[in-house]
């Protein structure tokens, strides 16, 4: 018997008899001989649970995770502490195993979670409507772009170079399909240059896309940027880091049309990049064009409060080729982790954790910039991530510095040169509440030594 099945020999005989065939083979009679495999799959035979566990554990042990080193890697995903409460809830089969809640009467748990999640995301972003999740951050930007495209039918996107490179690329990949072009808005001292926006804007612009804080950690001056875009009739899409929204004015306050972002920092583990969730909030006017599931409140026949999937006429299973998006399975379980995390942080905790990161980040930035051979890449305000310029010989040199630090058990951050050729010596350093002052001090000492060693080597 194959793993997880129950059909004994006796069962099989009975069942085949009931079907009226002599063998399982006969059930596959419709498959033409020409397309039959006719051999065993070249995949090893099944293994015992303990053997599979041991094999995969050994593979996992070959990774250096944030459990194994002091990591300042961020650049879109962050090593926040995930409270154990979340494990307890997301491993409950009642949340873990159901399908999308097509039968609301037996899915009130998942549906109410979506409703609560939408409320929390609305509060956080300051925008009136939210869906129940999209795949993740960068594709959320692409999805927002598609919404702009079907909303105002325009075909140019202006995207700040401060938007996550993966998001810019995902938008471009998708836009090529739906017939739109993507242009970049350059940065000036780390932040989107308002003059460049003014120069590029026009009434053919579908949307202007910004990030808050941007990829280099800089807090963008949305007050200056948003009106320029909106005046032209373009939608403004802001991709934001949700963990900064306890201290930063929310995008809704500036009148942006769509706020999206990577939800991973909210109670989701790193998981080498996924699964996490993308959040997607917008102005009321865009509600009926939003992608993804949306839960709504209603009542049952007895007047009891209940929740359902609503506004489904936007969706593929109802509208097919006229749907506002093709998304079907999204990230419900990850969004659950997100809303549990936001409840756990609570109204004041989101501010406290933001301020804690802000203060430690200021400390780290100051101490690191004071190192010989290290300077700030920009002077913009930052919340929990900032870019440094190493006084080195380009990408290879930065790579060697990182390797030196890693050998000391510290991952100093992300080499910007991978995505920003104009910053071959850039290093992006991110903090979470898990990086203490002692960790920062250790980074300062290890990075200082690594930069010094690299200079010596280069000059030798």
């Amino acid at each position, binding site marked *: 018997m194959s793993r997880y099945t129950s059909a004994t020999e006796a069962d099989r005989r009975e069942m085949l008899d009931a079907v009226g065939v002599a063998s399982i083979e006969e059930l596959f009679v*419709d498959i033409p001989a020409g397309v039959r495999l006719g051999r065993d799959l070249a995949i090893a035979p099944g293994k015992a649970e303990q053997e599979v566990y041991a094999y995969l554990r050994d593979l996992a042990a070959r990774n250096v995770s944030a459990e194994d080193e002091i990591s300042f890697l961020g650049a879109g995903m962050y090593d926040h502490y995930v409270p154990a409460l979340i494990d307890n809830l997301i491993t409950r089969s009642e949340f873990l195993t159901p399908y999308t809640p097509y039968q609301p009467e037996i899915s009130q*748990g998942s549906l109410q979670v979506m409703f609560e999640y939408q409320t929390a995301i609305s509060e956080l972003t300051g925008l009136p409507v939210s869906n129940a999740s999209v795949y993740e951050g960068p594709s959320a930007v692409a999805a927002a772009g598609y919404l702009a495209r079907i909303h105002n039918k325009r075909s140019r996107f202006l995207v700040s170079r401060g938007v996550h490179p993966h998001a810019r690329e995902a938008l471009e990949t998708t836009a090529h399909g739906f017939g739109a072009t993507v242009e970049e808005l350059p940065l000036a001292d780390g932040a989107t240059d308002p003059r460049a926006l003014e120069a590029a804007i026009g009434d053919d612009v579908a949307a202007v896309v910004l990030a808050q804080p941007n990829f280099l950690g800089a807090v963008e001056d949305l007050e200056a940027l948003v009106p320029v875009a909106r005046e032209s009739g373009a939608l403004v899409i802001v991709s934001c880091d949700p963990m900064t929204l306890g201290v930063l004015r929310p995008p809704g306050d500036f009148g942006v049309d769509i706020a999206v972002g990577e939800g991973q920092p909210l109670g989701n583990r790193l998981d080498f990049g996924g699964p996490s969730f993308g959040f997607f909030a917008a102005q009321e006017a865009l509600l009926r064009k939003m992608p993804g599931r949306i839960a709504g409140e209603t009542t*049952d026949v007895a007047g009891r409060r209940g929740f359902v999937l609503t506004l489904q006429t936007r969706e593929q299973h109802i509208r097919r080729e006229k749907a506002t998006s093709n998304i079907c399975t999204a990230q419900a379980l990850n969004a659950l982790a997100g809303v549990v995390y936001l409840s756990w942080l609570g109204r004041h905790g989101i501010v406290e954790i933001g301020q804690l990161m802000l203060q430690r980040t200021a400390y780290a930035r100051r101490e690191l910039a004071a190192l010989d051979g290290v300077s700030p890449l920009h002077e913009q305000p930052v919340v929990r991530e900032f870019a440094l310029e190493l006084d080195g010989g380009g990408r290879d040199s930065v790579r060697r510095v990182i390797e030196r630090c890693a050998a000391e058990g510290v991952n100093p951050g992300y080499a910007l040169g991978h995505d920003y050729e104009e910053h071959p010596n850039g290093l992006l350093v991110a903090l979470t509440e898990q990086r203490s002052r002692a960790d920062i001090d250790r980074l300062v000492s290890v990075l200082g030594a690594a930069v010094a060693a690299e200079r010596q080597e280069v000059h030798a």
Partner: protein
Amino acid sequence: MSTMNENRLHGYPGIADNDGQDGRQPTLHETPMQRDRARTIWDKSQPGRRAFTAPELDVDAQPLDDLIPARMRRVEPPKLPEISEPEINRHYKRLSTRNFDLDEGFYPLGSCTMKHNPKMHERVAALPGNARLHPLQSPERAQGALQLMYELQEALGEIAGLPHVHLQPSAGSHGELAGVLLTRAYHEDRGEHRTKVLTPDTAHGTNPATVTMAGYEVVKVGTNADGGVDIDDLRAKADDQVACLMLTNPSTLGLFDRNIEEIARIVHDVGATLYYDGANLNAVMGISRPGDMGFDIVHYNLHKTFTQPHGGGGPGAGPIAVSDRIEPYLPRPQVVRRDGENGAGPVYDLDFDRPKSIGRLRGFQGNYGVFVRSYAYILSLGGDGLREASEIAVLNANYLLARLRGAGVAEYLPVAYDRLCMHEFVLSGAAMKRELGIKTLDLAKRLLDFGFHPPTVYFPLLVDEALLIEPTETETKETLDAFADVIAEILREAREDPEIARNAPYTTPVRRLDEAGAAKRPVIRQAL
């Protein structure tokens, strides 16, 4: 509801709701769950309560104004809940019990492959080396993860019979989008600008929706009397403006298209690509491979065939596999294996240097946590076990179909296409609606009272009052028998009194909900 009479309840107490007669409260006869009205976490919040304790501020605090200008700072804290940890836990734990789930019982939701989700997969996914691995960790220090992804690519490629696998897409429809964009890139690279994509009328909604998103026009292809693609219609529509035909085989009717070789020929003859929607792969693992059928591009739903738990609507993953001619356009980065230097073992890496790539579809490397679970599954079953899983999936479906062909059922719920089925099958509720006055929806709702998740209903669209039933291989014969018995019982009951099904369910945490009202005046967040 108030017209109903207690004697017709057949065991379900919820029915007296809201009748309000003889001074009783309108909540009389509620089940314990029903009595427990929905309250959100905000309804349970109180100012000043909290769960979170912040770590100590261990650096000298600077004035906020020195760090971020006031005009950029938030003034009012967001109105997130204020509630203690025990109460958060209770809130969501209790909410969870308002769900039906796969570990509770039978979940024959057609097209969704609700097979058992082994718990070991959660264990390996949670190992810190996986769960706390940063996606930008340098490849040298993420060799285990990259090796796992590489080996998963190899296994998936073998299962689909296609040589190149890419893991990035986040779900089936994301894989479809990747696939159609690949098709576009392929044609454009050859200087062709085709405009149309063919989809059968049985296709899942994501297929046409994807086509539109990818900038193509949808052209529908009909279905023949046998449940297969209407070859004449296909021939008529397959012209040089057609970029692709999207197909799933077995189809959403649960039928294997006997003409698949002919279909592939027609599509390829006009220079189009053949796309395989892998949602139904659970029928044919180790038995027949899309690549061998002539498909150029395949997506997998790891959250169906390969047991990633559905999570109430995700996460999933929708890797794709392609033939050689499509390979240059795959999204990037690609996980590759390189031979080690000086006789060392192989080295795994991310290859970004793919000049013809359509580019990224999302951040990082895809839903790695899903890959871990699905690879655990493949290792556990092995090649032989995967084949057997498909065999039992098909056996279970045919057995359940045989049971439902029995007297008392088949007159009302005939099978839509009278053939052996693959891993799922479609019944039509048209006769039931006509003869008994209950719709497929009513039958589905009544099933809830018996502790079964209903099948997929009203899909595929082609079949009137459709029920798409997929039992999967992990269910026992006893469960299939019990389900068949309950279907017969509901039909018997409906012959006596159709009101019972029409007003079902009775015992669920809430009863039928006002969906129209919800859509008309959407309340999609709590007012705070």
